[in-house]
């Protein structure tokens, strides 16, 4: 491999010529291997294999001429989730003024099981996520994440509140 063939085959030396001692060309490669693996380890530890994960969000195009005009959805198909403070979730189905408001949380037995049931019973469920000013970013991502876990295709992130909603969640 790394050694050169230094043995003399055939030929033989001629008479009278001085015999020079041939030094072996064999080099000890162990330190080089050590160095190689040291650097490999360094690059292995510093390399970032995993790219950050992202959630893609598409917001509706805001048209300044059509302020306040949104897409209408059927009240019977709509569920509104209000994200409150201290990881509390309020939700109701249907119209904000007549519906029954309930409280839940972000656990699997809370929000998820409610939405899973609702998604089974209601065709074309539309979910409206309304984060209050007291909620935090994690709550929003959690709520959006539930949509993809459960497979709710139609959902919207809305931050406008109507007075009746604020009034009702205050009493809960």
């Amino acid at each position: 491999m790394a050694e050169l063939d230094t043995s003399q085959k055939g030929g033989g030396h001629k008479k009278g010529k001085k015999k020079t001692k041939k030094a072996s060309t064999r080099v000890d490669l162990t330190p080089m291997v050590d160095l190689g693996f040291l650097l490999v380890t360094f690059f292995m530890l510093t390399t970032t294999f995993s790219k950050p994960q992202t959630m893609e969000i598409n917001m509706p195009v805001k048209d300044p001429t059509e302020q306040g005009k949104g897409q209408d959805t059927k009240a019977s198909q709509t569920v509104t989730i209000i994200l409150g403070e201290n990881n509390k979730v309020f939700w109701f189905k249907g119209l904000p003024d007549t519906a029954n408001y309930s409280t839940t949380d972000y656990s699997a037995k809370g929000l998820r099981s409610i939405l899973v049931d609702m998604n089974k019973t209601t065709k074309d469920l539309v979910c409206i996520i309304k984060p209050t000013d007291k909620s935090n970013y994690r709550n929003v991502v959690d709520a959006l994440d539930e949509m993809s876990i459960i497979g709710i295709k139609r959902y919207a992130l809305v931050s406008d509140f109507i007075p009746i909603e604020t009034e009702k969640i205050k009493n809960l």
Partner: protein
Amino acid sequence: MPKVKVPRKSTNVDMTAMCDVAFLLLTFFMLTTKFKADEPVVVQTPKSISEIKLPDNNIMSITITKDGRVYYGVDGKYNREKLLKKISDKYKIQFTEDETYAFSLTSAFGVPIQKLKLYLDLTPLERQNIQQPGIPIDSTNNELGDWIMQGRLANPQYSIAIRGDGDCPYPVIKKVIATLQAKNVNKFNLITNLEAKPKI
């Protein structure tokens, strides 16, 4: 009893093959490695099950800290220079060559435009140590909107990624999203940590 003579074998192992392997791996890691961009602030992103990967380049990042400060950054040295040129034209602030160079090496920053010149004059170490106030996002003084606008003019291929801290209050996020929408950016990415998909 006659002793059996065991011929002594050399303990010398040929290291060449191992050396080859080591350097092959070394080359591989050297070529694939990409050093983590230094982040000006530590942000704990929330978890999600989303597995969409963020593209490698052409990223405009908006970092939002726990206390609601907003940092802005774009990638690409050349694009950063172009962006600074556009901003200096818009705000009528002249930047020296050294400042432009310093800006082209800045991955993200969180200072108002009026203080940007002062910030760029600092040494890299000083820059790391000062507390940056964040980019103004109020409706009366929305500099983030200008940065986004000029950034997209500098490189139309930029996709926008929001790296927010999980504990960041929602009103800040609301303002950032409203700013994006005001600039007609309706598609953006939220950077999250990966979490296993639960069974339902």
